[in-house]
């Protein structure tokens, strides 16, 4: 289906996700009946290749953080399969147990303070997981000190301190060090720099790139900040209301976005140049509620090119070549959309719905 670049590594994806689904029932009333269902993640499929950084972007309610938690198995998916290095993540014969899986996959959260235990010193925090996984106390402490040095915090100054004695940027470095303590292959970063000031954000991004090279890591990088995702990602996945609408190499997504939503999202970035101020917003209204998503294409209620077919049928993933796929009726010839097969003829300038 897609060409896989020869990176000198194995061609099999590190992590392969198929048909991932998570719905949250909204209960209410006297009997606690299910009144509605939030379709937070609805049939998401993608691969994470060994050694790459996969960026996931989307607005609030698009399901990107739920996806992160499902990847980490912090919650059980309703449906879908997850293969890590070709092995199913499940308690069955030949399967990868959660304990084994989590040795390989670790996570960094947005809130650097809430994700640290305030009663543990920094080195105890980092040494905790290696201890649980069988290292001796002295080995675990030694590894913690190595990692502190690797994230740029001198162990002699920081090892014995507590989270409240550190700044936000330093705490996020601790979280990163802790995530690396089990020598994982894959690190899921859920908005890791969103709460940081700009000057600190740049430091942490540089650090993430250094660590990736040093430890041979693979990243899933989730963010609402399109500039940061462009900077750090090799491939980008765009989500809208629980579904993947577009995915591809970072250059293709940012230079030739296919899906009208991706175009609007990229077009919403402030220009940084006062001479190029916009006068009309690319989209009107807020993202709809994922409780009752629109039928067919979920973006059709805000899409300037929406046609009858968009309400009737869900678009299939169309291949634009080079691993760039987009779920839009305009991208697949014969879909019945007036602009079917002529995606890029839909003018960018008329993005006002």
């Amino acid at each position, binding site marked *: 289906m897609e060409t896989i670049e020869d990176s000198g590594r194995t061609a099999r994806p590190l992590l392969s996700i198929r048909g991932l689904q998570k719905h949250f029932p909204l209960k209410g009333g006297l009997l606690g009946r299910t009144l509605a269902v939030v379709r937070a993640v609805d049939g998401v499929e993608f691969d994470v290749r060994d050694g790459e950084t996969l960026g996931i972007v989307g607005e609030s309610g698009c399901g990107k953080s739920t996806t992160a938690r499902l990847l980490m198995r912090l919650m059980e998916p309703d449906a879908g399969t997850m293969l890590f290095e070709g092995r199913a993540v499940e308690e069955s014969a030949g399967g990868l147990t959660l304990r084994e899986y989590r040795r390989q996959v670790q996570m960094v959260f947005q809130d650097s303070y809430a994700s640290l235990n305030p009663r543990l010193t920094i080195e105890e925090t980092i040494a905790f997981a290696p201890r649980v996984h069988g290292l001796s106390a002295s080995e675990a402490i030694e590894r913690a000190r190595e990692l502190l040095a690797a994230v740029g915090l001198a162990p002699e100054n920081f090892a014995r301190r507590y989270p409240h004695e550190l700044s936000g940027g330093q705490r996020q470095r601790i979280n990163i060090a802790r995530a690396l303590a089990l020598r994982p292959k894959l690190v899921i970063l859920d908005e890791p720099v969103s709460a940081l000031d700009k000057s600190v954000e740049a430091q942490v991004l540089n650090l993430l790139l250094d660590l990736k090279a040093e430890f041979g890591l693979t990243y899933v990088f989730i963010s609402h900040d*399109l500039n940061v995702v462009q*900077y750090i990602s090799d491939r980008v996945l765009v989500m809208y209301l629980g579904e993947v609408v577009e995915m591809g190499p970072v250059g293709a997504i940012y230079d030739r976005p296919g899906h009208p939503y991706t175009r609007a999202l990229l077009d919403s970035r402030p220009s940084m140049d006062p001479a190029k101020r916009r006068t009309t*917003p690319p989209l009107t209204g807020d993202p709809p509620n994922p409780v009752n998503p629109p039928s067919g294409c979920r973006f059709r209620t805000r899409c300037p090119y929406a046609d009858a077919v968009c309400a009737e049928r869900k678009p299939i993933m169309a291949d634009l070549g080079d691993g760039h796929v987009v779920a839009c009726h305009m991208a697949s010839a014969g879909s019945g959309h007036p602009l079917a097969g002529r995606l890029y003829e839909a003018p960018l300038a008329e993005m006002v719905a």
Partner: protein
Amino acid sequence: MSAVLKPDPAPLVRLRDLKVTFATRDRTVHAVNGVDLDLAAGEVLCILGESGSGKSVTLRALMKLLPKFARVSGGIEVAGKDVNAMSERQLANFRGTDVAMVFQEPMTALDPVFTIGRQIAETVQRHEGASRSVANARALELLELVQIPSAKRRLDAYPHELSGGLRQRAMIAVALACRPKLLLADEPTTALDATVQIQVLLLLRELQERLDMGVIFVTHDLGVAGEIADRVAVMYAGRVVEEGPVAGLMAGPLHPYAQGLLGATVHAGLRGQRLTTIPGAPPTLEMAPTDCAFSPRCPHVREDCLQRVPPLTSPVPGRQARCVLVGDGA
């Protein structure tokens, strides 16, 4: 100390040597250490800074919204009135009619137990003594002004029933209820999604032009400043370190901190390059800085940086920076 920033005889806002310290039993924080700012009527000024730079405290001082234990000194004049000298009663009138504020989180600024329509109408009744029916009509007008779709129906909505973008618009409508001359905005778009943020920015810009308001907009986001500001003031450690028209500042910042901030901001075209960073962290401000507060992090630091707080100099008319490296061309 207080250089006259603009020749305009009666600016809408005139801050002179504003100082704010927060003294608690445990520690004292010198949040603002001598800020001079002017804002002309109808002008949009962005105060740009990172957390702890004193930008929000400066904004709150303009409306006297700081907690009781804050010690405030310096001249604060808004629309020709001395804010420091106002009684509680005068302040209650001043807030809403002369100056209004919008916040980052509308859910905490709006009252959850009253409908949007009631909250706007109440403001109009309270300040203008209008009758209930006149006030209700104004509420509808205001919701239409901030472009809330189906405005009539939304009058009866409670804040929790609105989406984030609509809530932010409703808060703007409340702030504009009595046609303030000055609108203060404290990161009003930071919590919003990208496609909604640009809508609210464009709305604020449009309203500002239509109602000819002065706006002071606090943000940490350079892109937001680029989209909305006429002038930008960059704050660091409780002082304005650079100030000038937005285009010049974004194209070529004078102060090393502003240069660092611009360099550290991730934007398109940086892929594959190492990001420039500002080493270290801002000072804790337990003491008011007596030298250049940025000197411990500055790549160009030299001896005279440590001897006193650098004065504001103006190498080109309309632009100023507080750095010994920036010459005085004026």
